[in-house]
């Protein structure tokens, strides 16, 4: 059964392949996996809610209804209300905005910019550049991640908040709590790049010696051309797989930092703060929805990231298929 499917797939690819890019093919293969489609759908809904929270959320995340505190699910409040009578559904939607911002920002800075460029650079240049980058990576790899993240966020926050240009940027972007976001994704990126950079570097080391790269260089192609036209397209699959695998961890770490009280500060909603508020055993006994609602959303999101990561690995790394 599975073999027949695979054969049909290959046939499809052969007949249609001429007009499709490798990534387009991979995407089609991905859409054939039901679990991956479900995961992708949940992630899409989550990111949509996060990005358009002001439109999607029925209420403001600060609007209090003190006549209706700690209510269970009802028609007016589908997911109940918290200690201050704030609508849980709206708070979950606004908290997803925090997750969306942190994951996307870390993905771009730590995942794409730092790990890809440093990995490419180390692998392509070799020699002293390689040694320098990889030894710095070793140091970050040896630092205990979570304690260092907590320490950085706890100690550097006052310094970041002081900066005038960040204040201006916050007003300009109209994102409340921008310093919190900057610190979190900055610190996360600092630690997130090492794994990806190592994998990309090792791939580049192998690709650098292939005939087509040697040929391109012999024809006088510049380093930039070799990197962007010949090397980058060949590691793009690994980059996508690596990024998708790290998304769940990034989302989880933001939640952990906020839970410790060094991440996103109230009143900006975050799943970390919600899990902290609902996490005491007495609260869970009396008002289980305070923990279970954000807990279920977070668990589903990270589960979806993990499933999608698995599916992408299957689809994009042909050797493992």
């Amino acid at each position: 059964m599975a073999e027949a499917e695979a054969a049909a797939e290959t046939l499809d690819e052969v007949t249609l392949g001429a007009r499709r890019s490798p990534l387009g093919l991979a995407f089609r293969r991905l859409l054939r996996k039901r679990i991956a489609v479900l995961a992708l759908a949940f992630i899409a809904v989550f990111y949509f809610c996060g990005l358009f929270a002001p439109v999607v959320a029925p209420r403001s995340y600060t609007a209090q209804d003190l006549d209706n505190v700690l209510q269970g699910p009802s028609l007016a409040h589908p997911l109940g209300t918290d200690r201050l009578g704030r609508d849980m559904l709206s708070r979950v939607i606004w908290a997803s905005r925090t997750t969306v911002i942190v994951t996307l920002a870390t993905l771009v800075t730590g995942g794409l910019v730092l790990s890809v460029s440093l990995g490419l650079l180390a692998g392509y240049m070799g020699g002293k550049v390689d040694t320098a980058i990889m030894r710095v990576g070793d140091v970050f790899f040896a630092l205990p991640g979570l304690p260092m993240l907590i320490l950085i966020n706890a100690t550097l926050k006052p310094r970041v908040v002081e900066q005038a240009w960040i204040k201006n940027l916050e007003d300009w972007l109209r994102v409340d709590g921008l310093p919190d976001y900057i610190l979190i994704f900055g610190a996360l990126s600092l630690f997130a790049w090492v794994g990806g950079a190592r994998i990309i570097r090792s791939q580049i080391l192998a690709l650098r010696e292939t005939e087509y790269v040697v040929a391109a260089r012999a024809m006088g192609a510049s380093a930039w051309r070799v990197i962007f036209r010949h090397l980058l397209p060949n590691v793009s699959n690994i980059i996508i797989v690596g990024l998708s695998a790290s998304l769940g961890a990034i989302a989880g770490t933001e939640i952990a930092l906020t839970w410790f009280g060094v991440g996103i500060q109230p009143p900006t909603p975050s799943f970390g703060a919600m899990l902290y508020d609902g996490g005491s055993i007495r609260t869970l006994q009396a008002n289980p929805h305070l923990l279970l609602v954000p807990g279920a959303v977070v668990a589903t999101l990270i589960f979806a990231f993990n499933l999608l990561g698995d599916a992408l690995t299957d689809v994009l790394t042909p050797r493992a298929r």
Partner: protein
Amino acid sequence: MQGILPYILRRLLWAPLILIAVSFIAFTVARYGPGDPISVAMGQYRDPEALARVRHEKGLDKPLLDQYRIYIWNVLHGDLGESFRFGARPVSEIIFPKMWVSAQLGLVALIITFGVGIPVGILAALKQGSWMDPASISTFLFFQSVPVLVTVPVMLLVFVLKLHWLPTGGWEGIFSKHIVIPALALSLPGVAGVARLMRATTLDVLKEDYVRTARAKGLREFTVVSQHVARNALLPMTTIIGISLVTLLEGAFFTETLLGIPGIGRLAFESVTSRDYDVILGLTLVLASAFIVANIVIDIAYTFIDPRVRYQRSAVI
């Protein structure tokens, strides 16, 4: 065996250099924070003159590099400084007993992680193509996805308050019922990773000629799997013990804090929130050294277990 000795030497020579860099980063970040240790220790009763005097006595008015030099000198002599929170008790006296608690808990969790993950991985590989393969891996992938922050309170509610099977938090050693909840909370998230790697290596081994030979000469399937497949598939598992240790430590932060276990995770949490700088620094150094040593030991052990492994220049940690 040519090449092993230079490899080990190179790894051992790099380790102290990495530790120095790690300690310098941690030191700088800790000192850069708001309120130096003394003003934190003195709380609200601060008298500027006394503050300046104590600061001078502790050498905190010196340039950062000098402070760092003195700190490292002391560390090399076994002095990790004093805790401000625990009434000037030496940091090493505080850290090591707590590390022992965490190590015990971590060992139990590690045994559960591998004890569950390895059989699940083998089964998933043997049932490749049937529904059991994705179902078993996905189940544990789900456990990996639920944050410890959710599992621990829920387990407390179910097992302690509703069913009365287990006692609440606290620490009574590894042979008491108190360990069940933290050990489960710490080990469940790691099972998926172990199971997945085990599944992948088992699938590789199943394709080997010697497995076909074993089947061809009429061995029972159980013997083939246990004697020929599992033993060879287990080799690469040693490499992920290091990663498992990191996962365990991060889980320990929450589990120990939530359950009131006097381990290193809870100590780190409390030290960071109360800015007990020397404890934070000491912890960072001790943990980083432990990881570096553990990784070197694992890698070297692996080259002995599986001589086919090549030693790459790049793999320093």
